[in-house]
């Protein structure tokens, strides 16, 4: 078996900023990322959607690179850039020809040190974000399903359960003072990690990090709301109206075992057994064999990227001639079989080979056809911010490859239970099959 080893070096500046470098000179391209340990889970109450709106503001100008200059300076250096807001982190990243490394670090340092935005920028980006919500959610068939529909049904703690894209009233209420406060609280070097991957010599990378980021003063350790959930003891159900789509949809989410436990590794392989494409048991039974569903997929989203409650979620679009209850019964039958019989040794071996292969692709992978090493960046950042161990990138695979058959059956019996799940029905207003939950 060939095992991939990524050379990784890391260091921490005086102000607490962690710096991680993974050199690879294959192509003259370098990927730079800055991750802040703040996501939409921990945004303030009464300000739903603020973490994401704030992410947009980070492209609106900083002291030495005003409005429109961030984007212009990256693009005109031959690079691409973006940012995204997740549950527990927000990232900003660029992939550029390696001769632009210093320029990118200067830009990232400038906005970490001195974001400079005004009311006009805020109004502009509030409008842009509303159109983003319309194009992705309000004007799309199955928009936001299930990632926006599931949390309010599954969780009880506001941190986990609110609308992450934001209610428009909350977006409208956001002020420039909120932006400045959020920036001062969470966007401090001691709450972030800087990553450089690809065509960079580690000693040069560390020297540049020192030059541009060391002058930024550390801040107070940010306060974080506790995302812990009260124990769940009953199945939870909710229903949402589908305005455009023609098929009834259903999402079923099971609460995941805690991060980096034996159960968590076993659950990841069980997820592969259940949701691994056309070979996965759920797709095979519901789409290929019983032909109840048109789509049945999903699984654990971004397994390494969460630092709080999360779920393994199945998403099903089923034919209108089958009721929601009949569809759910077929789904339950798949899970019952795993709980009762477990999986064969042969199936486990297949799952492990596929898991290893997928893991390598994640590390190499672009995002949407661009952004080389996005996956490696994301894993290094999460392992640094959540675990303080970037080297986990090279060792975490061991835990998954060591999973035994009994452990798979054991997590199926322990976690795949009605009292550990939430179900959301998304029911078309025009469909013949109108089901009560």
């Amino acid at each position: 078996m060939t095992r991939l080893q990524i050379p990784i070096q890391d260091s921490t500046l005086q102000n607490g900023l962690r710096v991680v470098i993974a050199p690879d000179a294959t192509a003259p391209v370098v990927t730079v990322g800055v991750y802040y340990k703040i996501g939409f889970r921990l945004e303030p109450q009464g300000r739903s959607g603020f973490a994401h709106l704030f992410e947009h503001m980070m492209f609106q100008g900083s002291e030495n690179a005003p409005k429109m200059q961030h984007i212009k300076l990256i693009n005109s250096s031959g690079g691409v850039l973006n940012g995204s807001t997740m549950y527990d982190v927000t990232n900003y990243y660029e992939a550029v020809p390696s001769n632009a490394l210093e320029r990118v670090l200067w830009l990232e340092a400038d906005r970490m040190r001195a974001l400079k935005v005004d009311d006009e920028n805020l109004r502009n980006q509030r409008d842009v974000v509303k159109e983003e919500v319309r194009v992705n959610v309000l004007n799309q068939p199955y928009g936001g399903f299930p990632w926006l529909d599931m949390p309010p049904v599954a969780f009880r703690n506001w941190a986990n359960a609110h609308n992450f894209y934001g209610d428009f009233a909350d977006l409208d209420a956001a002020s420039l003072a909120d932006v400045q406060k959020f920036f001062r609280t969470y966007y401090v070097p001691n709450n972030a990690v800087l990553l450089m991957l690809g065509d960079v010599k580690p000693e040069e990378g560390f020297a540049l990090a020192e030059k541009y980021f060391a002058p930024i003063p550390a801040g107070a350790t940010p306060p974080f709301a506790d995302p812990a959930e009260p124990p769940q003891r009953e199945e939870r159900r909710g229903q949402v109206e589908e305005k455009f789509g023609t098929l009834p949809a259903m999402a079923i989410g099971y609460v995941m075992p805690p991060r980096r436990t034996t159960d968590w590794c076993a659950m990841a392989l069980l997820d592969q057994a259940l949701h691994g494409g056309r070979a996965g048991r759920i797709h095979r039974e519901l789409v290929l064999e019983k032909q109840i569903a048109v789509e049945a997929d999903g699984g654990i989203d971004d397994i390494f990227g969460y630092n709080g409650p999360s779920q393994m979620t199945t998403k099903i679009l089923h034919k209108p001639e089958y009721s929601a209850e009949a569809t759910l019964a077929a789904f339950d039958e798949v899970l019952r079989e795993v709980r009762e019989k477990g999986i064969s040794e042969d199936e486990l071996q297949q799952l492990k080979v596929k898991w290893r292969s997928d893991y390598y692709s994640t590390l190499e992978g672009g995002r949407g056809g661009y952004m080389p090493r996005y996956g490696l960046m994301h894993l290094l950042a999460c392992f640094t911010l959540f675990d303080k161990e970037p080297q986990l990138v090279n060792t975490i695979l061991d835990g998954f490859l060591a999973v035994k058959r009994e452990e798979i059956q054991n997590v199926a019996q322990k976690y795949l239970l009605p009292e550990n799940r939430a179900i959301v029905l998304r029911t078309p207003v025009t469909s013949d099959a109108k089901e009560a939950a």
Partner: protein
Amino acid sequence: MATRAAEVSFGVPALTPERAVSWPKRTRAQLANGLQVVLAETHAIPKFHGELFFRAGNALVVDRAPTLAEMTATVVRTGTAKRASRQIEEDLRRLGADLGATAGQDTSAISFAGLSECSEPILQLVNELAREASFPEAEFERERRQKLEEVKLERTSPDFLAGERLRKVLFGAHPYAAISPSEAQVAAYRREDLQGVYREIYTPENALLMLVGDFEPQVMLKTIEKVFADWEGKKPAAKEAPVPPKPQGRRVYLVHNPGSVQTQILAGCHAITRKHPDWLRLGLTNSLYGGAFNSRLVMNIREDKGYTYSPRSSVHTLRLHGYFSVSAAVRNDVVAASLTEIFYEIDKLRAVPVPETELADAQNYLTGVFSMGLATQEGLLSQFSTVELNELPSDYLETYREKVRSFTPTDLLAAARKYFDSANMQIVVVGDRAQIEEQAKLFGEIEIFDNQGNHIQEGFCPG
């Protein structure tokens, strides 16, 4: 027009000297049966990516039914003489492999990726799918019923509705007009038709096998010969397609999508194919107009006005005809304002030479992102296959940057005048008729359709 004055940066570090961009060497071969092979090695991860292309797709067989080649590809992966569907899927997993079979207008393809240590059995499976697909009756029936649900569903997506209408307007009786079948056409698909398409298109003389990844090319070539050498079959006969219409004057096509809380704008005109000598300068002009984040259109209607989240323009490259398009999903009350800005930026590029500094920025952008393709196996595969499938010069990749950098403001002015055909752009808007019809009418004579693709009679407004 921007309402906010541009500001400048202070103390930006200069770019350091560039490292040379060098593309991995390609090993080419052709087997006795006509199969073309292109291999390139890169060793960052212990995997490889491959694609077996056939140089024909939906357009070749559209007289039988729309997207018949795509349906054929879908059923190809569901069974061979030796393996049932479930066996295929489990074997792929055992080999750490992913596989997809698809077809577009001009090509059909089996794409795959997997661990290098499993390359031979993966190629054997690909070989089986390409030669011995058995089109099991039950699998075909299931996929057909599945497709019926999909064609109903796609009519609820604003993006799909806009694309469908523009293609009909630009291509008329040409095969490229059809991007999806009707429910009745899907119901009429027959298994024998799929088998006919398969026999015609999936032949070695019509095929290109491309592999990129962690392997030794000479060893890989021997494996390929072993696996594919005894395959036989001729190229399908080429067919004459009707000439697409040349729409004159701006016209507006409103697709009424009741309840829309936003309007999808898509405007387009005919342009050129990838092989055309003007292709690179058009690509650069497009990049500067709306092909990049830093482009004029994005800066105007997103960063300055906040009308939209994701405006963009593109040059679409079908093998026989290319077209230019610009799209944005905008707030319902700014449809007219957005179209005004879309045309303002087009007309400005047609009237005023681009400033030298802006041109240099766009040249840097395009040449920089071109090199991003070097960093992943998929990126390399995509660049190499673009060259092969469009029959571009063999030094295309190596000379691209130099050529893009040679263009002047005069070249871009000429490209914009020739290909951003402002006066004859066809405008599609998908949204709620009551909220946008008056605004849309300002831009040309209007025709109205429902979301099933039917003309709506004048004076009749459903919903």
